[in-house]
């Protein structure tokens, strides 16, 4: 069962795994978070391998921002032990609502050419990626703002055992004005390193149980392999609609459980 859930996760995104495990299978929140984090590393490493080869992700941007996300992740992982489970459930619920909102929103694309940002230039972040019309160059802006959001995204990842890809994309796409394709693939690339930073803390706290994480991890790997095939066939618009509906429901359930103190 956990493997099947993992496969679904590979299809849709890490955020559904923890609510499904806790709500339907009554798995303790800490074990669920541990298993989820392991699956996050598996999907990130698996899919990042594909994107890096295609030349979309920007390794320098990723590495620089990983300073923020790994430190945030350490903080988040420490907080998991300090914060009561009901509070984690409430934060999780809010986060689910937010990611449903993000996935439904159409993004306005303002691509006004501005002069290069001196800090981004100094950090050698401006880059290029293959587009339909050839190689496209882009500049990066507002590095400190992006860096701060990344710290928050890392903390959330460490606290909830998720990849928090949605927030990473917000930091890069919205704050730093990095092209969407580069943002999403670089975010995917960063998720694995961010998750590894909290995984060490989880491991030493005993949150990672091999008998639970094993089926979840293998399911996620199979799911993400199938995912790329299924996603090509099905209409992504419909799939997204169904998925955000599921996420909202899970979010409500997590909030209710958090407020009634069922965790």
């Amino acid at each position: 069962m956990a493997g099947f859930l993992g496969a679904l996760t590979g299809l849709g995104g890490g955020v559904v795994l923890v609510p499904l495990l806790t709500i339907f299978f009554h798995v303790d929140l800490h074990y669920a978070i541990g298993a989820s984090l392991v699956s996050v590393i598996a999907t990130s490493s698996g899919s990042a391998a594909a994107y890096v080869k295609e030349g979309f992700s920007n390794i320098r941007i990723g590495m620089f921002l990983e300073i923020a996300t790994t430190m945030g992740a350490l903080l988040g992982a420490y907080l998991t032990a300090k914060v009561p489970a009901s509070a984690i459930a409430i934060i999780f619920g809010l986060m689910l609502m937010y990611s449903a909102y993000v996935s439904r929103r159409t993004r306005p694309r303002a691509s006004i050419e501005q002069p290069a940002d001196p800090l981004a230039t100094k950090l050698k972040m401006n880059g290029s990626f293959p587009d339909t019309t050839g190689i496209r160059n882009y500049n990066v802006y507002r590095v400190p703002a992006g860096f701060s959001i990344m710290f928050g995204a890392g903390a959330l990842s460490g606290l909830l055992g998720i990849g928090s890809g949605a927030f990473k994309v917000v930091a890069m796409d919205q704050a730093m004005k990095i092209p969407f394709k580069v943002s999403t693939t670089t975010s995917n690339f960063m998720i694995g390193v961010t998750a590894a930073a909290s995984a060490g803390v989880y491991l030493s706290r005993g949150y990672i149980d091999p008998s639970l994480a094993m089926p979840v991890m293998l399911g996620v790997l199979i799911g993400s392999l199938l995912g790329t095939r299924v996603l090509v066939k099905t209409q992504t618009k419909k799939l997204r609609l169904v998925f955000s509906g599921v996420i909202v429901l899970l979010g409500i359930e997590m909030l209710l459980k958090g407020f009634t103190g069922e965790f």
Partner: protein
Amino acid sequence: MPTPPPTDNDRSFQEWYEQRMEDTIANLLRGGVLLSAFVVIAGAVLYLGAHPLARVSYRSFSGEPEQLRTVHGIVRSASSGQARSIMQLGLLLLIATPVARVVFSILAFAAEGDRMYVGFTLIVLAVLLYSLFGSFLIA
């Protein structure tokens, strides 16, 4: 297939080099995931062979035993053939994959002579190593 380095000018050499670096990172990530999946499956086969009807409850949190919580403990108990420890070793390899990627990036930036990014990457590596080996000092 790695293409031979172009020798005509610096610009195309730089591009060739970055392409090689990206290819190597991609293979490293893929190899790490495959290796860890293999070890996890091996442990699972052993585990299910020994406890075919095992039912474990995860309703309440009790925490993993000591030998499944530290890098040292996992490696030691896995090498003595304990099925759960072998699965955990596979998961540890999965966690180590991004760490290996960071180590490789340090070497790659160093080979490019990019000292600033060697510095940034060293910070990331320090945080990761602290998490894996140092967190039990505080926990």
